């Protein structure tokens, strides 16, 4: 059985499945239930300065997609709305009772050195394993100059991280907002400030919909809506991309990553770890199904690792990073063509119409003796994958690699590249 223990920035946990700073980690009661269920760690819901914030009624919005509940999820909830002292006492108790689990404390205070120093001193007394600076929340707190308002300005990130590193012995994780044009700027700033690790992504600015009767953006509070933080399965591709960007960035080399964003199964987690994450954080999936989902996450990851011969997480951590490259490093001579398995085809015609109307007109629609049939015109197929994606039958359309006998050639080296021709002419 594979060893699922993880260590990230000196923080140890029996497995890489942590609960992200969010409602599920708001208090002792929830966190203890999570640990009982098997979660390897938690990031306690963000603490701030007293008096605690006050939340609105009506806080969450969801995107249901054709019968699938909560493909996407958002919230306009603020940080912990309980007194600081209550949270600290509970954190201390939980850490004492569950010494083997990772317990980070998420923090968000005004942008003054004093504020950060004061709260760090208090958190240190709890003997928590570390802190996570919440520079991510895109709603509410950002209007008060905190959360993503800090996370969107690399100089602020570096400054606050520096204060915190000077003020505490605890490992400092920095939670990054995806609401930026390039995730590398805040990541590099965190590293420059001395951060021990980054956690990403926090939630994405979003409006879940508009109620067309009341004309209120969703989720709405008494007829009005504010943008909230978007998360859930739908954001996973965005999160994977940002994690990968940091993992492959030479300037961020060695900066541990706790991956967050739409993680629901062991497979999602394995993908984040392959992309360089040292642990993963989950929220929406737990809020949808309860803490029990961690059972299959642990069992699934362990079984998959056994099957692959990976004994420890480090055996495959970051294994996909070298393969995550710029477009300019892709092989221009690689060719795939669609192949339709006529025995599996159910004659829905979706591949044809997708290709005919919107792509390369390379799937022929044939009617013989009243029977429909769809055939790939190989010469026309550019290997775009669209037909395989729209096909509702698993394994019916396969993209088959064609051996061209040509070498791996990047665009820079490609004879079809006009710049290369120009350079050659010089």
């Amino acid at each position, binding site marked *: 059985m594979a060893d699922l223990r993880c260590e990230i920035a000196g923080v140890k946990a029996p497995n890489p499945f942590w609960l992200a700073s969010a409602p599920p980690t708001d208090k002792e009661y929830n966190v203890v239930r999570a640990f009982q269920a098997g979660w390897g760690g938690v990031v306690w819901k963000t603490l701030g300065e007293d008096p605690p914030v006050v939340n609105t009624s009506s806080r969450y919005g969801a995107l249901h997609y054709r019968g699938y509940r909560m493909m996407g999820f958002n919230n306009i909830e603020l940080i912990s709305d309980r007194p600081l002292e209550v949270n600290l006492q509970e954190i201390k108790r939980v850490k004492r009772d569950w010494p083997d689990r990772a317990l980070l404390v998420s923090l968000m205070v005004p942008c003054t050195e004093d504020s950060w120093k004061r709260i760090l001193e208090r958190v240190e007394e709890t003997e928590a394993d570390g802190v996570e600076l919440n520079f991510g929340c895109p709603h509410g707190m950002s209007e008060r100059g905190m959360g993503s308002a800090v996370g969107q300005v690399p100089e602020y990130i570096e400054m606050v991280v520096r204060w915190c590193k000077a003020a505490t012995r605890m490992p400092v994780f920095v939670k990054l907002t995806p609401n930026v044009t390039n995730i590398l700027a805040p990541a590099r700033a965190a590293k420059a400030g001395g951060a021990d690790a980054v956690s990403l992504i926090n939630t994405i600015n979003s409006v879940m919909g508009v109620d067309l009767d009341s004309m209120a953006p969703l989720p709405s509070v008494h007829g009005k809506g504010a943008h909230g933080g978007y998360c859930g399965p739908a954001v996973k591709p965005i999160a994977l991309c940002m994690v990968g960007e940091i993992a492959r960035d030479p300037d961020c080399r060695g900066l541990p990553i706790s991956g967050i964003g739409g993680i629901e199964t062991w497979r999602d987690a394995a993908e984040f770890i392959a992309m360089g994450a040292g642990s993963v954080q989950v929220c929406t999936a737990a809020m949808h199904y309860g803490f*029990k989902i961690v059972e*299959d996450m642990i069992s*699934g990851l362990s079984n998959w690792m056994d099957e692959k011969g990976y004994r420890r997480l480090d055996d495959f951590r970051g294994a996909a990073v070298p393969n995550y490259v710029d477009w300019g490093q892709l092989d221009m001579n690689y060719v795939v063509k669609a192949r339709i398995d006529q025995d599996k085809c159910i004659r829905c015609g979706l591949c044809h119409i997708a290709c005919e109307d919107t792509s390369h007109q390379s799937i022929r629609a044939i009617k013989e003796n009243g029977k429909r049939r769809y055939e790939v015109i190989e010469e026309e197929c550019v290997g775009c994958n669209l037909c395989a994606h729209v096909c509702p039958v698993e394994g019916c359309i396969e993209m088959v690699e064609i051996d061209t006998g040509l070498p791996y050639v990047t665009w820079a080296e490609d004879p079809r590249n006009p710049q290369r021709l120009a350079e050659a002419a010089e």
Partner: protein
Amino acid sequence: MADAPDVRAGRLSPAEYRRNFDDAHPPLTAQQAMVEAARCLFCYDAPCIEACPTGIDIPRFIRGIQSGNLRGAAETILEANIMGGTCARVCPTDVLCEGACVRLAEGKKPVEIGALQRHAVDWLFERGIQPFTRGAPTGERIAVVGAGPAGLACAHALARHGHEVVIFEKRAKAGGLNEYGIAAYKMVHDFAQREVAFILGIGGIELRTGIELGRDVTLGELRRDFAAVFLGLGLQGVHALGLAGERLAGVHDAVAFIERLRQTKDLSTLPVGRQIVVIGGGNTAIDIATQTKRLGAETVTIVYRRGPEQMSASPAEQEWAKSNGVAIRHWARPVAIEGVEGHVRSVTFERTRLDREGRLEGTGERFTLPADQLFKAIGQKLVPSAFNGTAELLDVENGKIVVDAERRTTLDRVWAGGDCIGSSVDLTVAAVEDGKLAAASIHRYLMAG
């Protein structure tokens, strides 16, 4: 009705036999399983778990299928029910797990839990994965009598604890009713034997076949030679109709005929009547009726003395028989069996109803059904000869062994489970749970030393 009885073999073409006795419910494809698994809501305190006699964590194993953790899914099933493979095929899921699915409450089809369970266990079996290991040997030896679902489940659980088990089985093969009793089209491709091999594969279990309790070995000897004894005897005796014509040729005990059918390699050699009458209302009645129909019988009629609600065969099983062309007649009981030259030719029934006290009574009205074969499927009983030569007696009530909640009999160091005990509901899954509970109790007893 004076025609000679028509009972013969080879009524069908080879292709028809193949089709009729192939998998009645073919397995899900990987994609079908994914789509079906996605319908599971992952309920909290799921009612399906409660409805499963072995308490399989159904939402968890279905989540494993969803996430591609097939091994984890299979382990979740087998951890609770070592015969999860058979149960996925034979359980009356419509009255167990699927009958409790919350999807029904919204007026939708329940999640196909049985089919998903089969998908996961088949995945593991196809890869020859053995997820269980025998515990460190304890030096304790336990005798298990009967290699049916109860006995095998008990033996497996004891082996996991590190005890040494000897199973005594009177038949040539292990598996009990999984091998000899369940309808052929539910257990194709020798599944019962593959499952037995999987269970014995844990090690520490010795199987001795051809040994019958009361004939070759006595309970007293087993108690003397072993630290504990588990009785998973099943029910080997058959109830009689108590009618004069019962000994005519062509009058069969359904269980014995199904056993013969299950052990016949070439079904075209198995003679079957043109017109068949089955008496009974349980799963055996459904199984014999459907299988004789599929062997080529022209008409098959099940006659049951009460109404459809009182039949112990589940509604889905009754529907299954009907969709196979079997007729079911309710509220009638046999009163005479008529023969021609020593062979059954017809059966006469009297219509029944409930009297004012709710007791069954005859109306005096009669009808006669032609029958080349008559099958009795009216239940089985314990054979008292099993306890021959046993000085000590264990309590038997209404033809079943009396046990407590832990499946302890009234005799010291003797446990029992499966169809032979009082609480039995005549299901593989219930027998497995008996074996599991008894093994846990035996283990506690032995370890308390």
